[in-house]
């Protein structure tokens, strides 16, 4: 970070940029310190011990797996919507875009209760899916639904921006060269928007792993990692929850940094 400040100073050392850099430093430390402190105050042995705990391993695995499922489902249905929003103007488009962002802003517990009203055993979709043996309360399917609901906006917004950045005339030229709409989509639009779509998938996956409130309401059991952390904190207190929190933060950071680096690889700064 000192590099950053130094570099800013070199570019145009004036009082404003220095003030801005100092203010910015405060917020960066505010984000950085808690994460660093949690990770580094747990010794590697403690982290490893907690990794040996079957329940911890199982919860982390369940989080990764359910969030991945949610992302796959989200991609199948979300990427087409993103493409439509990027390419077409139609009355009510603003409304649709607003609706898609709503899951970010409503309280997670309220979202969980709203989902219960549709996917609960005695309701609408819940009953229908029950007939084919899928049950959303206290089940993996429930976790996936909760994660899908709160994380889908990230995928759609990012994919939309990606498609928007693809010159529509590239698609037009492709059509005049004899490509069908499908061929054009898979050979031109998708490869060119790929980076943004991948970044959106990463964000959606990570956001799914991070969810607590909606999952708690819909499916407290089987316990995903974020619920297990809360459970231990409530029952045994901070010291007992810490290694698991540290482990979880580490896992998320590694995944996030790795996939982000992959998504941005080759792109210029």
């Amino acid at each position, binding site marked *: 970070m000192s590099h950053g400040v130094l570099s800013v100073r070199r570019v145009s050392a004036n009082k404003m940029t220095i003030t801005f850099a100092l203010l910015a430093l405060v917020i960066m430390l505010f984000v950085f310190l808690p994460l660093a402190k949690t990770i580094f105050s747990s010794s590697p042995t403690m982290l490893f011990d907690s990794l040996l705990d079957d329940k911890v391993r199982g919860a982390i695995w369940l989080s990764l797996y359910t969030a991945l499922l949610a992302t796959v489902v989200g991609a199948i249905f979300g990427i087409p919507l993103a493409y439509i929003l990027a390419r077409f103007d139609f009355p009510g488009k603003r409304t649709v875009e607003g609706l898609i962002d709503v899951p970010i802003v409503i309280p997670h517990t309220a979202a969980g209760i709203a989902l219960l009203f549709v996917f609960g055993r005695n309701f609408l979709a819940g009953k229908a899916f029950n007939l084919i043996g899928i049950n959303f309360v206290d089940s993996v399917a429930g976790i996936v639904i909760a994660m899908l609901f709160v994380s889908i906006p990230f995928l759609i917004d990012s994919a939309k921006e990606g498609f928007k950045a693809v010159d529509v005339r590239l698609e*037009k*030229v492709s*059509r*005049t*060269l004899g*490509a069908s709409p499908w*061929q054009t989509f898979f050979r*031109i639009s998708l490869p*060119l928007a790929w980076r943004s779509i991948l970044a959106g998938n990463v964000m959606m996956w990570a956001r799914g792993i991070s969810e607590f409130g909606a999952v708690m309401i819909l499916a407290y059991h089987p316990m995903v990692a974020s619920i297990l952390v809360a459970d231990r904190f409530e029952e045994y207190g901070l010291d007992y929850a810490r290694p698991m929190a540290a482990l979880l933060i580490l896992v998320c950071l590694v995944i996030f940094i790795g996939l982000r680096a992959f998504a941005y690889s080759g792109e210029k700064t």
Partner: protein
Amino acid sequence: MIEVKNLSVDLGDFLLKDITFDVKQGEYYIILGPTGAGKTVLLESIAGLHPIRKGEIWLNGKEITNLEPERRGIGVVYQDYVLFPHLSVKENIVFGLRLRRQPRQEIEATLSWLVELLNISHLLQRKPGTLSGGESQKVALARALSVKPAVLLLDEPLSALDPGAREDIQHELRRIHDRLNITVIQVTHDFEEAVALGHRIAVIGEGRIMQIGTSEQIFRQPNSEFVARFAMSRNIFSGEVRDGDEECAVINIGDMEVAAVTELRGEIHASLRPEDILISTEPLKSSARNCLHGVISRIDDRGSTLLLTVTVPPEFICLVTRHSFEEMGLTEWKEVYMTFKASAVHIF
């Protein structure tokens, strides 16, 4: 070969009304109009890339108004090339051929034909981002030609290029047209480009076609002030034809009398091209019917040529080469004679 009938396109900012024209097999057809006149929209409508509200498009006797673009066999080349940035030059060129699942040898044969035609063999492995403007436009042409389109639509293909590359690509375009005998429709806002390339020119303005004709007709006989200004007849006057015999009329422009060949009478417009005026320091003895005396009130140096404003009054704009300018030792406020033929004055 291509017929556009009463085509209307409404796109908010752009509005095309009742566009009708037809292009013959093998013709190099130019659509000339100012920026923002909806020329690109018109091309995209012909290619099937815009929904058409009203009107019809026919190709070789078949109506294609609502046919999907991939079934029309109409190639498009844009001003800024629009190459697929994730594919190499070679992959760009064979994109359409691979879609057709042609056998490998056939694809290779077409590729080498195009590479030879446009002289781009050294570019094949490059990515579009590394090409110059002229190289990019050649690749875009090769890509459009790869699927052997019946018609090639060119959307201001020279506008984004440096002057050097512009001349080069202009030359290529004519060569390709002559060699392949392909039908070309090109839109441009540049009159010189239109004259240099087009067999026929359709001048478009305010959403309508203003005039269709050979470059000679547009140049010499503009049918409206809009076309005249666009065709760079800088000298446009309003006046009145008093009388005269059938062969030659006398036109009053302000206090000045000018001879012209016209059968029109009454209030008219007259246009006179700057390069049709001969400048001399002494009155010339010649067959030309008009010889006016004026003073150089302004000199615009264009490098190889100069534009003189000669005040009679009114003001005339005259074009001279640097060569004759220096020969005659012209300067501002010098008195000169302007000689031009009665037939050079176009009345409308």
